[in-house]
C-alpha cells in the first residue's frame, strides 16, 4: 500500500492544475473570509446637545461563564451584606406588546456592572414563573400568567455563595424552584426588583422599543445594610445613552408597593436575536464555501482526468486491485486537502476576527478547545468533501457530473436554508440534517438557549445537529459513495 500512496502522491504533485487548486484552498478561504469581515460593521452614534457626534463600536460584556451576554434592565435595589433574603408579591406584568420572555421580579446581583453574577426569580410574559441565574441557567417555576387575581409570591434567600429561589401562590406554602451557586460572590451585593423586556422579535422594530412594567407589593427585604432607601439604576450593556438622557425605565413607589418598568434582557447574547451584538465565529469563516467548491473540483478531477485520457487503464494495469487504488487516492487527497484547509482556517479566524473588530463588531469569544474543534473540524469537513467528490468522480467517470452533483448536495442546501427566508422551517431543517451540509455544524459554537428568542438558523451559526452528528452525516455520505465507487470500479471494464 505504501507504494500506492507514493505513486498517487507523485501523480498529484506532477500536475500543475491540481497543485494550484490545492494552494487556492487556503488563499481563497482566508482571503474571502477577511474580505467579507472587512465589510461588516456594528456601532452606535448620537449627537450631543452641543452638536458633537459621538460614536463607537459595539460591545458586549461577558458573563461569569465566559459567554457574551445581554445585561440590560431597570434595577430598584438596596445593598445587602452577608446573608439575607428578599420576598415580594407580584400582581401584574404589563407591556404595550407583551413579549413571551418579558420579565420582572426580584434579583440579587453582585453589583450593577453589566455581566456580573446574579440570581433572579421572575414572572414572564408567557412562560410562567422562572428562576434564572448567571445568564445561561433557567428553571421553570409555577406556570400561568400573573395578575391581580392570580398573584405570584417570589423569594430569594442568600446564604454565602448560594442563593435559593422559592415561589408561592398564596404566600404561605412555598415551593423551592432552584438553587444557584455563584462562586466568589462578594459580601456586599445588590438586591431588589427589576423589569426588562426584549424587543419584538417578529416585527424587529428596535426603534419602537417596548417597555415592561411589573407591579410589586408586600415587599420585604432582610439582611445587613437593607432597610434604607431604594436606589434606581439603569443597568445597560447596550449602546450608551446621549448625556442628559437617562435610560428607559424607572421605578415608582405607590401606596401599596412599587412599579418597576424597564427594557432589555438578562440573557446570553445569541446571534440572530434582535438585540444581540455578538458575531458568531462562523462569520469569520465565510470563505469556506468558496474553498469547498475548489476542493470539490480538485477532488473530482484527480480521478476523472485519468478516465478522460484513458490513463485509468495504465493505472489499473499497474495495480489490478482497484479498490486499493481508490483508497490510496482518497488518503492522499484527503491528507493534502486537510492540511490546506487547516492552514486556511487557522489564518482566516484571527485575521477575519481582527477585521470584524475593526468594524466595531463583537466577536464571540472561544475557549481554546472550541477554537480547536472549529478549525480541525472544518479542515476535516474539507477533507471528507474532497473524498466525496473523488468517489463521485469514480462513479460518474466524468468531471462535470461529479462536480455538479457534489455542489448540489453541499452548497445548494446551505444556500436554500440561508437565502430563502420564507422557506418552511421543516424543509430547511430537513435539508440541514440529511444532506452532507449537516457537517457545517462543526462551526457551531453557541448552544441554543430556550429562554432566548432567536431564529436559530444556519445563517447565525446554528445547526439542527450537534457537531459530531453533523460530521457523521457527511462521513456516511462519503463512505457510502466510496463503497459504491469501489463496487462499480470492480464490476466495470476499465
Amino acid at each position: 500500500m505504501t507504494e500506492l500512496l507514493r505513486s498517487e502522491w507523485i501523480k498529484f504533485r506532477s500536475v500543475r492544475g491540481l497543485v494550484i487548486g490545492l494552494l487556492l484552498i487556503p488563499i481563497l478561504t482566508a482571503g474571502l473570509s477577511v474580505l467579507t469581515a472587512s465589510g461588516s460593521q456594528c456601532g452606535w452614534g448620537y449627537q450631543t446637545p452641543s452638536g458633537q457626534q459621538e460614536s463607537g463600536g459595539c460591545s458586549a460584556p461577558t458573563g461569569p461563564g465566559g459567554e457574551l451576554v445581554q445585561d440590560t434592565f431597570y434595577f430598584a435595589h438596596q445593598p445587602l451584606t452577608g446573608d439575607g433574603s428578599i420576598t415580594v408579591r407580584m400582581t401584574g406584568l404589563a407591556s404595550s406588546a407583551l413579549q413571551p420572555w418579558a420579565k420582572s421580579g426580584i434579583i440579587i446581583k453582585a453589583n450593577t456592572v453589566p455581566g456580573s453574577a446574579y440570581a433572579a426569580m421572575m414572572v414572564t410574559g408567557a412562560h410562567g414563573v422562572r428562576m434564572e441565574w448567571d445568564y445561561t441557567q433557567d428553571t421553570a417555576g409555577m406556570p400561568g400568567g400573573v395578575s391581580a387575581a392570580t398573584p405570584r409570591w417570589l423569594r430569594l434567600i442568600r446564604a454565602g455563595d448560594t442563593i435559593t429561589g422559592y415561589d408561592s401562590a398564596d404566600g404561605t406554602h412555598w415551593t423551592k424552584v432552584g438553587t444557584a451557586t455563584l462562586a466568589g460572590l462578594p459580601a456586599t451585593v445588590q438586591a431588589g426588583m427589576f423589569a426588562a423586556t426584549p424587543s419584538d422579535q417578529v416585527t424587529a422594530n428596535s426603534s419602537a422599543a417596548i417597555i415592561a412594567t411589573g407591579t410589586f407589593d408586600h415587599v420585604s427585604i432582610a439582611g445587613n445594610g437593607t432597610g434604607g432607601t431604594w436606589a434606581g439604576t439603569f443597568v445597560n450593556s447596550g449602546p450608551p445613552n446621549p448625556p442628559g438622557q437617562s435610560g428607559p425605565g424607572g421605578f415608582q413607589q405607590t401606596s401599596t408597593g412599587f412599579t418597576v418598568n424597564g427594557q432589555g434582557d438578562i440573557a446570553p447574547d445569541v446571534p440572530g436575536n434582535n438585540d444581540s451584538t455578538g458575531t458568531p465565529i462562523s462569520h469569520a469563516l465565510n470563505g469556506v464555501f468558496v474553498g469547498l467548491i475548489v476542493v470539490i473540483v480538485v477532488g473530482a478531477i484527480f480521478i476523472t482526468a485519468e478516465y478522460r485520457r484513458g490513463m485509468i487503464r495504465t493505472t489499473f494495469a499497474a495495480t489490478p486491485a482497484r479498490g486499493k487504488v481508490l483508497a490510496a487516492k482518497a488518503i492522499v487527497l484527503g491528507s493534502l486537502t486537510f492540511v490546506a484547509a487547516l492552514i486556511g482556517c487557522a489564518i482566516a479566524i484571527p485575521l477575519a476576527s481582527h477585521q470584524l473588530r475593526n468594524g466595531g463588531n463583537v466577536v464571540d469569544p472561544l475557549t481554546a478547545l472550541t477554537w480547536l474543534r472549529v478549525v480541525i473540524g472544518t479542515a476535516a469537513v474539507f477533507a471528507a468533501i474532497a473524498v466525496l467528490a473523488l468517489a463521485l468522480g469514480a462513479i460518474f467517470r466524468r468531471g462535470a457530473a461529479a462536480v455538479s452533483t457534489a455542489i448540489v448536495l453541499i452548497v445548494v442546501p446551505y444556500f436554500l436554508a440561508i437565502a430563502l427566508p420564507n422557506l418552511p422551517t421543516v424543509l430547511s431543517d430537513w435539508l440541514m440534517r440529511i444532506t452532507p451540509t449537516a457537517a457545517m455544524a462543526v462551526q457551531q459554537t453557541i448552544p441554543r438557549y430556550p429562554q432566548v428568542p432567536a431564529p436559530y438558523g444556519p445563517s447565525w451559526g446554528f445547526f439542527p445537529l450537534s457537531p459530531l452528528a453533523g460530521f457523521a452525516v457527511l462521513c456516511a455520505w462519503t463512505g457510502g459513495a466510496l463503497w459504491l465507487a469501489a463496487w462499480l470500479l470492480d464490476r466495470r471494464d476499465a
Partner: protein
Amino acid sequence: MLSAEWTKARTLSSTLWLLAGAIAVTIALSAGVVAATRCTSVGCGDPARVSLTGTYLGQAIVAVLAVLAISDEYSTGMIHLTFTAMPRRVPVLAAKAAVLTALVFAAGVIAVLGSMLAGRLMLPGNGFSDYPSLASGPMLRAAFGTVLYLALIALLSLGLATAVREAAVAIGCVLGLLFLFPLITAFIGGNATLQRHLDQISPMTAGLYIQATTGLRSLPLTPWQGLGVLALWAAGALLLGSLILHWRDA
C-alpha cells in the same frame, strides 16, 4: 452553420436527458416547497417567488447543459473537426448560443408552467387568499421573466465554459458565481448599503428579481433592471469566451 449546431445538439441523447432533468427537478422542487409553505403571522410570501423556487435547482442543470455543449467538444477533440469545417470561430459560438437558447427556452416554458400550476393549485389552500390570477401582469412577468432568466444562465455558462474549457472547472466557476455571491453577502453584518450594492451586482440575486410580485419597493432594483444585470453578466462571459476562442490554439 446553425443547422450543423442544431443537428449536433438534438442528436446528443445527454442533451435531452439534461433538459428533461431540468424540467423535472424544477417542477418537483417548486411543488415540494409550495406544498409545505404556509402563511405566517407576518404575512404570506411572494406567490410567484414561492411557486418558482424550483428555479434554483433547475438553473444548475441548465448550467451543466450549457457547459457540456462546448466542453464536450474540447474533451473529445471534436473541436478540431468543428473548426476545420467552419474556420471562423466566433460565429460558431454564436450558433451554439442560438441553439442552446432555443432549447433552454422551450424547456423553461414547460418548467415554469408546471411550477406556476403547482402554486396555483396548492397555495390558495395554504393561506394565500389573495392569489393573483396567472394572467395578471406581474405573474406573467414573473413567469416569462423566469424563462428568460434560464436562457441567460445558459448563455452565461456557455461563455464561461468557452473561456475555461475544462468542464469540471467551468461548472465549479459558474455554480460558485451564482450561489456564493448571495451566501457571502448574507454574512456581511450591519452594513446595509454594502449588502444592497452587492445584491445589485450579483447575477442570481439580481436576475431573480424578475420573479418578485410583492414588496417591490424594498428591492434595490426593479425586476427588469435585475434581469438586465444578469444579461450584462452573460454578455460579458460570452465576450470573454469569444476573445479566448479567437486568440488561443484550439
